[in-house]
């Protein structure tokens, strides 16, 4: 499933989508950057509360498909401009982390 298809299926809000055709390989959760660096995987949809510029660097280094801000994380313009420059997709959910991850998981499973 691509990031674009995920948006259609789940209704997640697109904040910055420079690579709509990027394939998603699975869902990943964590808010500690060191853990994300070692356990985050290529193609992951990373559901996190870390709406900051460092999340973009980490998503880029681990080759993730998209960052999904959730649990009421606030939009950060600096983050979004960095995401655009680094070609990292960023989506937003108003649901908590678990519900957001579950809906992505179900969308992937039923794809």
């Amino acid at each position: 499933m691509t990031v674009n298809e995920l948006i259609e299926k789940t209704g997640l809000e697109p904040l910055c989508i420079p690579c709509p055709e990027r394939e998603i390989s699975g869902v990943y959760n964590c808010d500690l950057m060191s853990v994300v660096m070692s356990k985050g995987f290529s193609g992951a949809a990373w559901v996190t509360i870390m709406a900051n510029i460092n999340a973009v660097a980490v998503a880029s280094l681990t080759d993730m498909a998209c960052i999904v801000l959730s649990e009421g994380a606030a939009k950060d313009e600096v983050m979004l401009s960095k995401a655009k420059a680094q070609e990292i997709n960023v989506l937003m959910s108003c649901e908590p982390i678990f519900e957001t991850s579950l809906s992505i998981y179900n969308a992937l499973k039923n794809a």
Partner: protein
Amino acid sequence: MSNLVLKYTVDNEDFTRAGEASSDVKKKLKMMGVPPEAVRKVAIAMYEGEINMVIHADGGEITVEITPTQIVMVLKDKGPGITDIEKAMQAGYSTASENIRALGFGAGMGLPNMKKYSDEMDIDTVIGVGTTVTMKVNI
């Protein structure tokens, strides 16, 4: 073929640019056709080292040398130095402030990650003078 040498300056406390050196090295290694597993190891090890230079030291200089058989990263800072290396190497040990933790750092896993993802690591530190971390990843 001569070895490729890359040099970077890491600013202190500049989180907006933290990770840029690692990203650039990753991009170049990928373009050079270095195997993905080696690229991943370099990206993780170097990012953790770069972040440590930003949050624990006053920034510094990174030199990356790419040879046909290995990638050598030298991260040199003029920070406070590490008092107890053995303690610093323990997973979970961190002196990071609350502000830093709120950004997702300070899990105390940086040095353990650097050790895990490099094939060789050496820390040379002098209190009040600075720290030089050398990491090698075999290709």
